[in-house]
């Protein structure tokens, strides 16, 4: 592929023609589609997802494929744009003739594609976060990532165990922060916890001291929770320690990456957050049933790409493996049969946790999917 860079014009055209011919003549393969945000603002999701799918489809084919046939993966780059995703979904169904679909990186793109797969009767495993994808349940639609609501529940469970009942909330106004804030407000009552201060900040704000000062003055404050994504939470964490809060700070799974600790520095000490087991793969005790899966995926991905593993690629791994196992159980490439088997997935151990799907749960994860972490000495450590 590298020599194509040097003589772009003609060579690229020829290569393209060859690829066209290649896909046209390849027979007896099982076609799987994916439309991912490989480029654009959501590429931090789509890029590791696409790499993971390509990596593991190659590996599965080397090991003899599925039901004696090779898998053929068709990936399109929708850039996170819902309209493009919808077009690619139509193309995958109508033109490429896929039997199943993995991916949709963003909630918007996924929701735009849902009607295409519902109409065509082809199973679609989404890699996007929001709970609307599977609630209400749609016949052919599944998803692998845990939801924001589960992150809220995990945090509130931990708070309750520590005897915390009055909390402040400061959330970002981006898609992630907004969605998680409303999910947290929805479930907070179930835990006997009261939100005594509710503040927000914009995605580009560089100082959250005023909002935090408001929260600090709330009566009987016992903890603060910060649903947010990107660098906002790092700034909140810095301001939080500058203002000398003496109650614990909870961050969301949205900041579960090393760069958060780098940005927040010493202020991050003692911050708790729910995160995927992938983040602490090596720190899990050997007795942990998830350890083999997460360390296996982590080393495979990092060896092949030379990039640090992310939970998003893990969602793609889970989606592909759930699909492959369903196809093996079904013993055919009939989309309806595959759908039925995906729905019967039970005790599947993925990077996100144990998956047990049913007719009214197309996600199948429980709260054990999340690990509660605390940042100690500039590194993650398991709380449980």
């Amino acid at each position, binding site marked *: 592929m590298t020599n194509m860079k040097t003589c*772009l014009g003609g060579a690229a055209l020829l290569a393209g023609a060859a690829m066209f011919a290649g896909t046209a003549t390849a027979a007896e393969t099982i076609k799987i589609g994916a439309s991912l945000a490989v480029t654009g603002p959501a590429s931090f999701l789509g890029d590791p997802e696409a790499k993971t799918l390509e990596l593991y489809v190659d590996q599965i084919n080397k090991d003899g494929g599925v039901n004696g046939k090779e898998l053929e993966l068709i990936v399109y780059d929708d850039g*996170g744009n819902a*309209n493009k995703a919808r*077009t690619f979904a139509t193309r995958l169904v*109508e*033109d490429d003739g896929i039997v199943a679909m993995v991916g949709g990186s963003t909630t*918007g793109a996924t929701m*735009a594609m849902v009607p295409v797969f519902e109409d065509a009767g082809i199973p679609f495993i989404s890699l996007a976060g929001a709970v609307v994808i599977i609630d209400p349940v749609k016949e052919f639609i599944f998803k692998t990532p845990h939801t924001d609501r589960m992150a809220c529940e995990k945090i509130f469970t931990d708070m309750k165990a520590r005897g915390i009942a009055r909390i402040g909330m400061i959330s970002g*106004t981006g898609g992630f922060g907004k969605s998680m804030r409303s999910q947290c407000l929805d479930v907070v009552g179930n835990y006997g916890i009261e939100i005594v201060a509710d503040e927000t900040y914009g995605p580009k704000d560089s100082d959250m001291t005023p909002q935090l000062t408001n929260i600090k003055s709330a009566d009987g404050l016992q903890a603060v929770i910060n649903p947010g994504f990107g660098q906002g939470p790092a700034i909140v964490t810095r301001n939080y320690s500058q203002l000398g809060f003496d109650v614990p700070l909870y961050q969301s799974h949205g900041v579960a990456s090393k760069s958060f600790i780098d940005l927040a520095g010493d202020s991050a000490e003692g911050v708790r957050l729910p995160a995927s087991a992938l983040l602490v793969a090596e720190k899990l005790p050997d007795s942990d049933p998830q350890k083999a899966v997460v360390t296996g995926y982590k080393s495979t991905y990092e060896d092949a790409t030379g990039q640090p593993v992310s939970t998003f690629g893990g969602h793609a791994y889970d989606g592909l493996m759930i699909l492959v196992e369903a196809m093996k159980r079904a013993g055919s490439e009939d989309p309806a049969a595959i759908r039925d088997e995906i729905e019967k997935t039970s005790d599947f151990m993925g990077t996100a946790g144990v998956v047990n799907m049913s007719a009214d749960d197309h996600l199948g994860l429980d709260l054990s999917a999340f690990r509660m972490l605390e940042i100690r000495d500039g590194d993650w450590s398991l709380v449980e």
Partner: protein
Amino acid sequence: MPALLSHRLAVPLVIALVVVALSFALPSNFYLRVAALVWISALAVIGLNLLMGYAGQVSLGHAGFFGLGAYAVAVLPAQFALHPLLAALVGAVICGLIAFVVGRPILKLKGHYLAVATLGFGILIAMAISNEAWLTGGPDGMPVSRMTLFGWRARGAETWYWITGGLLVVGAWIAVNLVASPTGRALRALHDSEVAARVAGIDVARYKVRVFVISAVYASVAGSALALVNGFVTPETANFMHSIELVTMVVVGGMGSILGSVAGAAILVVLPQVLTAFHEYEHMLLGLMMMVIMIVLRSGIVPSLAALIQRRRK
């Protein structure tokens, strides 16, 4: 033949023939969908071309109107149980009113200043759409209820192919009539020289606002059509990149050419689908082709080719 081609109705007729002919040639729903997306984009581009190509005013915020039209058919039926067609109409009226109100002060600006002002306006609408989550669903977008008409549900790629194709023909027909009217002549006059136009007794400010309103309504209707076709809207329909895409379609197809608008839309919608075969080189090739088109066919595809054919004939 030349006399026939120069007739006012030739352009919408050609477009109608293309729509009908393509319907026989396209093999699957995927192609029908891509064609429907071309018709929708072309409709918005024709409106923008009236503003840019005929009146010579730039707008870098047209996706704002497009987005308003799209969200009108999503929000109004959901909140007020309005029929989608009525919602599209309300959206178009709202866009026209907004264009009328902001048009007067904005269109006093010229060149770069006008570009920046319209850009700011577009970004403002995009921000409002992604921030007012209680109304618009925020950055994740919101669903659009399917359109029913006398108990018949509009769904399926083929239905929408015909609906959007019909809209485009009507849009093109209105546009050629407008261009041939005194308003059209006034617009071209102020494109060439505002001072000369004013001397000739043309109310420059009024005509500018008028064409701005018309182009906003075109964008709004196109946006409504896209929302109904997709059954789902996201804030990207209103964002800055989409505005740039619309402007690019106008320039590539040819400023001041209705057929060019369709050609520009077709190229920018279809090319990315063709180029997916090149995987990671997709975006590079798209950029390269745009550059080549602009260097070789300097005044846009349709006007450049038309000039070429005319020169050959002589």
